[in-house]
């Protein structure tokens, strides 16, 4: 079988995903086109050689509608021979694109693929695409679909994670992210965003707060209490009747931030690498997707990781470095507990709590962050896993070559 190699990964800085954020004025197609151009330039890539571009995007309407992958390719002056597809697996979209690329390469039907993701949460807010799960009462009441914050609070309640545990984790994310920026760990992958005149718009993640401490985190209000009381808690308890009440521990401080951004990974076979002169950095050795109970929704990382590990006969302790997406603090704490992950192997440069979670792009960003850090530490195996809306989990395992 063919192996799927990663040649390069890159990402934009993450801008605050609300009006007023640095990237609010930048169209999502611009974010994607900028990264495509950067990928082309720094790899001296003949774009004709690329078979397909797979782009994750969770809210593919408006500025992000109508196959933003192909649109961005054309806009970025890539060869017309390159195809593009946009996919949506909620928060895992940017990792699903990587896994799908790996599958395509391993099948031998395609040789060189760009996987990635884009999300301008400031311009195309979450939920703009409607959808039956949350907005069709017949469906949501049958499925027991609640907003993710309620699910995260439910996890914390069941696992016994107190508000302080969640905040402590959040503080760690902030400190590690600040340290990573200070030590320039992200430099290899960051593609600054410039305007059409070549003037700099943003070259650094925008929302992390290096000074964050437990005291300030403790002052933040529970973000999901009001809607919980409005009825979503009752929906959750219908599925989890052994819980007396949902404790609302998650706040804006210990949940992932809304941000704008894009990321890409160049993935291909060994032969195409030799053909176009690309040096493989790592290979994708396993990938897995699972479905989980949809009301608690965010418990997918553990079963997805286990599935991916089992496929190649590995165990959690065989992994040198982990990226568990920081959708909410409780999600990471639960996965850490279940997979028995050491602190110094887990999200060592912070994560979405500090830096933000540009839905469609995050998976690809995590892959890049993981690989950069594996190289810096000279480690062999790494695993990225994420919880996913609708009750899913995803995992990808890479090995340096």
């Amino acid at each position, binding site marked *: 079988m063919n192996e799927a190699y990663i040649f390069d990964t890159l990402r934009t800085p993450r801008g605050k995903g609300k009006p007023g954020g640095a990237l609010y004025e930048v169209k999502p197609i611009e974010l994607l086109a900028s990264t495509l151009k950067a990928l082309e330039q720094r790899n001296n890539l003949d774009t004709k050689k690329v078979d397909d571009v797979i782009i994750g995007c969770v809210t593919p309407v408006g500025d992000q509608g109508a196959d933003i992958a192909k649109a961005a390719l054309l806009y970025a002056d890539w060869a017309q021979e390159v195809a593009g597809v946009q996919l949506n697996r909620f928060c895992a979209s940017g990792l699903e694109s990587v896994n799908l690329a790996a599958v395509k390469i391993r099948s031998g039907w395609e040789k060189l693929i760009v996987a990635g993701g884009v999300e301008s949460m400031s311009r195309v*807010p979450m*939920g*703009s695409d*409607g959808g039956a799960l*949350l*907005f*069709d*009462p*017949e469906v*949501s*009441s049958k499925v027991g679909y*609640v907003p993710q914050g309620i699910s995260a609070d439910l996890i914390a309640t069941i696992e016994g994670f107190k508000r302080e545990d969640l905040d402590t984790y959040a503080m760690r994310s902030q400190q590690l992210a600040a340290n990573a920026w200070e030590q320039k760990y992200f430099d290899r992958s960051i593609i600054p965003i410039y305007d059409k005149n070549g003037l700099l718009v943003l070259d650094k993640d925008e929302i992390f707060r290096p000074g964050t401490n437990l005291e300030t985190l403790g002052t933040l209000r529970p973000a999901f209490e009001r*809607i919980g009381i*409005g*009825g*979503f808690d*009752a*929906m959750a*308890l*219908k599925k989890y*009747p*052994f*819980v*007396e*009440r949902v404790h609302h521990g998650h706040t804006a401080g210990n949940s992932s931030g809304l941000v704008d951004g894009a990321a890409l990974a160049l993935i291909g076979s060994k032969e195409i690498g030799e053909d176009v002169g690309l040096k493989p950095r790592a290979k994708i050795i396993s990938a897995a997707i699972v479905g989980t109970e949809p009301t608690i929704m965010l418990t997918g990382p553990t079963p997805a990781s286990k599935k991916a590990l089992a496929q190649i006969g590995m165990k959690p302790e065989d992994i040198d470095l982990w990226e568990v997406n920081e959708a909410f603090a409780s999600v990471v704490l639960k996965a850490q507990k279940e997979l028995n992950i050491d602190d110094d192997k887990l999200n060592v440069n912070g994560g979405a709590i500090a830096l933000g979670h540009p839905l469609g792009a995050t998976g690809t960003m995590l892959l890049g962050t993981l690989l950069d850090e594996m190289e810096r530490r000279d480690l062999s195996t790494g695993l990225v896993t994420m919880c996913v809306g609708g009750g899913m989990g995803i995992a990808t395992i890479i090995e340096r070559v």
Partner: protein
Amino acid sequence: MIHYSKDIDQIVTLTLDMKGRLVNVINHEIGKVFIPVLEQLKAEKAKGKLKGVILTSAKKTFMAGGDLDYLYHADNAESVYKISQTLKEFFREIESPGVPVVAAINGTALGTGFEMAMACHHRIVINDRKIRLGHPEVSLGLMPGSGSSIRMMWLLGIKKTFNILTRGKSYTPKKALEAGIVDDLASGRKEMMEKARAYILANGEVRRLWDTKAGRIPGGTADHPKVALEISMISASLANGYKNNFPAPKAILSTLVEGSKVDFDTACRIESRYFTKLLLSKEAKNMVKAFWYDLNAIKEGANRPKGFGKFRPKKVGIVGAGRMGSGITFNCIMKGMEVVLKDVSKGIADRGKEFSAKKLLDLVEDGKISKAEREQYLKMVTTTESFEDFKTCDIVIECVFENEMVKSKVTKESEMHMDEYAFLGTNTISIPITKLAESSIRPENYIGLHFFAPVEEIPLVEIVKGEKTSDETIARAFDFVKKIRKTPIIVKDSWGFFASRVQNTYILEGLNMLEEGYPPALIENLGLQAGMPKGALALADELSLKLVLKYEDQASVNYGPKYIQHPAVSVLHKMVNELSRTGQSAKAGFYDYSNPEQISLWKDLGEHFPNKVKKYSEKDIIDRFLFAQVIEAVWCLQEKIIESVPEANLGSIYGFGFPAFKGGVIQYINDYGVKNFVAKCEELENIHGPRFKAPSLLKKKVEKQEML
């Protein structure tokens, strides 16, 4: 049947007057009669000889609601859908002759009756407080099925319409105007007709909003992100208190949400499909059975002793101006009875009267009564500290606290002044009436009247027969309870009477699960999911564990050697005797009441009742909760504690909140299937013991293949 008259302004008045009926009803015949008339109107319009149409009624009411007999027995989706669509097409004809059509609403129009009004371009109603308007279908587990949901949505928006249809309120004309479901009020028939004509003359060719290009649903469709978000919150709110056990509010919400995204006629089809599903649902059938058939059977006096003329009490004496006495006072004056409210001092009695004063003020603010009427009502209450004022009372109701001595004393002192025709009702929850009657000089005129809290809201009274209570007194008590618009159920003087006895089995079952090692939160949540208003442990705390135990002690005395102790009794003993946690009034029970902001399960509960059960079937737990009650209710029927199925059903729904969507505690068996029910009893008996044994009455029903 339809009187047609045309005036010089070329305005046609159609007056509905169905032959041989007290009211105009909408059924399949109405279409037949109406269609030629509508054809004629169209022809006149084509010739330019029609300015407008006024639709009114020659009956006291405008139009009656739907035919519940038909609805209850309907079992075929295709025919229900078809009838719903046919009626819609007819209403569509009414609203589209090209000229204004005005509903001149001279009387009550509810449910399907109001659909007709909604199909007119303009609604004018006589401002008479006795008139009731709107869509109360939801209280029978139903929803409008002839387009009203969609029409109202186009007039008022999704959210308002949802609120109106799911609250199921019947509006006075004034309130209907405020709610926006009618357009104008008139002082009387004459003004109504004048206003109708004026509207027609002022408006030429009118079209319904949904038939115009520019027409938009107020507030936007469910596609609008803001509306979509609101809808997801409304949808979630239906989970609070497990209201989502009732399918009607969900169906109404989905009809509006889905109907808002498409054109009017498509939306109407969506309404018909949800309506059909709902109508054929078990929940709706159960609710129609309980709140229509069972309730009517009771009201018609099926169990009232025969041969006694109607009792018309004018004056009621009430001893004890606490929460119960004040509530009953309010109930009585609202139905035109004078009340003598007595307590140990006039000051305390006055405070009891204050309750009515406050309630009446609410009614004034609601537009239900005028300020002058409020004064009149209040004048009907006399407060006193003297028993002498009971001299002219037809009834005296004693609601002093639950103590035999005090009750005996009050009985004696009241009877000293009551005349020999008056009867004395005692409001007790656990003292046998026959025993209390021993202190009465006229035990034949002594009876139990078990009211339920909050008394001004709960529409149920258990009439408890003492050994010596005369049939005449029962008949009089029945008439009195009916007069205060409550449902009377007649029960035998036995421990817990009917409601509390059955309710107690729910509590005991929950306590037993605790002993078995189920997590307490699970017990509470699944009780709620079963449709009960409170968790079993919370309820035990509320009633006090001592009372729960007292009922069980009374059962043991009652059955003597045949009594099999309920396994939960040990839990009660442990809580009361060892742990001194007797319930809410002691601020310590299964729950911890130290923080009134957040009352939580007692954190040490797990220490004393360790969690042993890790795997369980939620359905089995819910079955246990409901079966325990249903079996006890069947015992009550078998032991003649209660005489009839309707009384048991309503008694359970109103008395202790047995799930209405199951139609009450006996209808539950029909819903489950008698044979399946008995089989399940055997299964439960094998696992959990003899308390789940099916009473012989049920086995007989199975043999005869009968329902209950």
